[in-house]
């Protein structure tokens, strides 16, 4: 009888034991790297010499990062991509969600699934597929354009076309995610509102602008916030599509790609850590600005 009692958890500790797996994982893979990178941001370090080789350099890394032309270049690339992928995503997702919501009954899930599929597809598979689609001499895109007499374009090797190509891929990939968000929000809008509006003689366009859009505002706020945070952290697509380099003229070397390269290609972990914290500050600032722009606190409670 003694053994089972020994194994029994006291109610006092049970909750902590049950959440401990998460806390442990979060501690190891979340908190520790965070603190370590903060520490590294103030050190200079030749990593292959071991942990003992770190030397404190104060704010040197931050000064270097802020004066580094390539860091600013990468920030510009990031902002460009964030805007070029974020804005169209929402401008297309909202009407598309409304269209799916109103026009599809039985096929609705299938439609949503089709748009959502890219989101859950492996980035590597996507990159391989698009790099062959965008291939200059043998790609489907250029073959298609060739039918209209357009000369072959070297999509992935010219800075001018690489950026839009990557933006298109990211747009394609995350559109479905936003559609799902807006579809969920659309289902919560009471039908009576539309019925009343119809009685008052409002057309579909008026209904969209005066009922649908205002009701979607909280979800737009949420979606835009996610897009900004995600947009400023774009990494996978340009990384894989350009073999981890950022492409010709570093055209799609986003800040996230650059700071990875700083550490693992250019051997500068201290500089990379400082940059990652500056990037964090930028993300925080943009999030705060979005927050201000949407005034979520003054939003009428529904």
């Amino acid at each position, binding site marked *: 009888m003694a053994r089972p009692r020994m194994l029994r958890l006291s109610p006092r500790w049970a909750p902590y034991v049950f959440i401990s797996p998460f806390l442990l994982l979060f501690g190891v893979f979340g908190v520790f790297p965070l603190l370590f990178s903060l520490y590294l941001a103030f050190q200079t370090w*030749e990593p*292959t*010499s*071991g942990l003992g080789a770190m030397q404190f350099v104060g704010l040197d890394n931050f000064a270097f990062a802020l004066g580094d032309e390539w860091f600013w270049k990468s920030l510009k690339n990031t902002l460009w991509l964030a805007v070029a992928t974020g804005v169209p995503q929402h401008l297309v997702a909202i009407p598309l969600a409304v269209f799916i919501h109103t026009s599809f009954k039985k096929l609705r899930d299938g439609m949503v699934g089709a748009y959502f599929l890219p989101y859950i597809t492996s980035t590597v598979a996507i990159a391989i597929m698009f790099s062959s689609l965008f291939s200059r001499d043998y790609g489907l895109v250029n073959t298609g354009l060739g039918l209209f007499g357009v000369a072959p374009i070297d999509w992935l090797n010219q*800075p001018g076309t690489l950026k839009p190509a990557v933006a298109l891929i990211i747009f394609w990939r995350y559109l479905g995610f936003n559609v799902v968000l807006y579809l969920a929000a659309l289902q919560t809008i009471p039908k009576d509102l539309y019925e009343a509006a119809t009685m008052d003689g409002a057309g579909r366009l008026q209904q969209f602008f005066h009922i649908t859009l205002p009701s979607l505002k909280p979800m737009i706020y949420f979606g835009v916030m996610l897009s900004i945070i995600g947009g400023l952290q774009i990494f996978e697509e340009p990384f894989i599509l350009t073999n981890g380099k950022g492409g010709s*003229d570093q055209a799609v070397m986003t800040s996230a790609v650059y700071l990875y390269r700083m550490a693992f290609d250019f051997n500068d972990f201290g500089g990379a850590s400082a940059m990652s914290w500056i990037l964090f500050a930028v993300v925080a600032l943009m999030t705060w600005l979005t927050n201000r722009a949407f005034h979520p606190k003054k939003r009428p409670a529904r």
Partner: protein
Amino acid sequence: MTHPADGLPARRALLASGLAALLPAGARAQASGQARKVLTVAAFPLVDKIVEAAQPQWRRLHPDVELKVLSRPYADHHTAMTTALSTAVYLPDVMALEQSYVGRFAQGTGLDDLTRPPFDIARHRARFAPYAYDQATTRRGAVVAAPGDIGPGTLLYRTDVLAKAGVQPEDLTRSWDSYVAAGIQIKRKTGAFLIGNVQAVKNILMRSGAKPGEGLYFDKDSRVLVNTPRFVRAFEVARQLRQHQLDARVGEWTNDWAEGFKRGTLATEMSGAWLVGQLNNWVAPDTKGLWRASQLPENAYAAYGGAFYAVPRHSAPENKALAWDFIQMMTLDRERQFAAFKSQDAFPALVDCYDDPFFDEPLPFLGGQKARLLWREAARRITAMPVHKQSTFADEVITTELDHVLDRGKPIPQALADAERLIARRAFR
């Protein structure tokens, strides 16, 4: 009250029995690991195969020690080695390193100096290709890795395309000017491009004419050397080639690049001798017999990669001597060097096997040419260039500035001045 109390121990018993089933298996694995000594070697593709092929010989040498190969993809391997060295955990007993990483890792103190006991590589110095040995030698005189194979640079060309264009092979190599002129003729007569990408030409030319002891981008005092005649010439020749539209503007290892070889739209390519094996095995096997090899234009000699073996300083001390045995087997043993050469086109770094008749054998892919003699010559003549901590960054800056010159018509002096400024900014980081 009784019901749940009864249920709980039952479930717990089930859980315990599950654990019991798992535990002995783990314990068993551990026990067997302790019984036999294990030497771990971390490697990346093709080197992993070369090491695996050495298993029988290793078993003859050390029947009581298991040779374990940890293989990861190229980039992952080197990232994993960086991490393992930085934290000094999960270090293998021996790590394979690609040439560019040897210079980089030599900046730190994470690798053992192979000139010190229990190692004694210095005694064998004359047996290695000189540049490969020098490449692994740090400024302080430590040798941090032993060369396993090397990549002597070569010019490959299509005889059928040349014949159609009326161009002689000597026209390609006499001088860079004649190389460009030959390219113009080839393009006009056959429509084929001279080369995949002009960056390859720049990479060779910027090495040519460096003073002894000079690095590619930095001198020994970390002064930046990119605003010098050798870079100006490299940029000029590259620009000339592009102005005549002689390069296909494809990146190496891309689909378009491979297609160019298959379809014969690339008349020449400059790369390591190992490219012949790659073309033969999978890139363009149908072009067998159409290719020939020569030295690079103007008798330039350059190295394209190569694999080295190193011992981490913090690896298990009791395995150091074994690790050295293993490295000697891989790098100083004719049998192993030739096995790697024959199966993976890994050109031997071991000079004292260069007298073997194997070098005189004709290569079917090159139409029976005895090209190994050329590469043997190159291997002896290539010189090492000291690697700087910022070499990778400098490399990228130079490539980008050349792109600016080629694509946007940026003046060469301005491009090199911009590159110098960018590189100098981190010369001492």
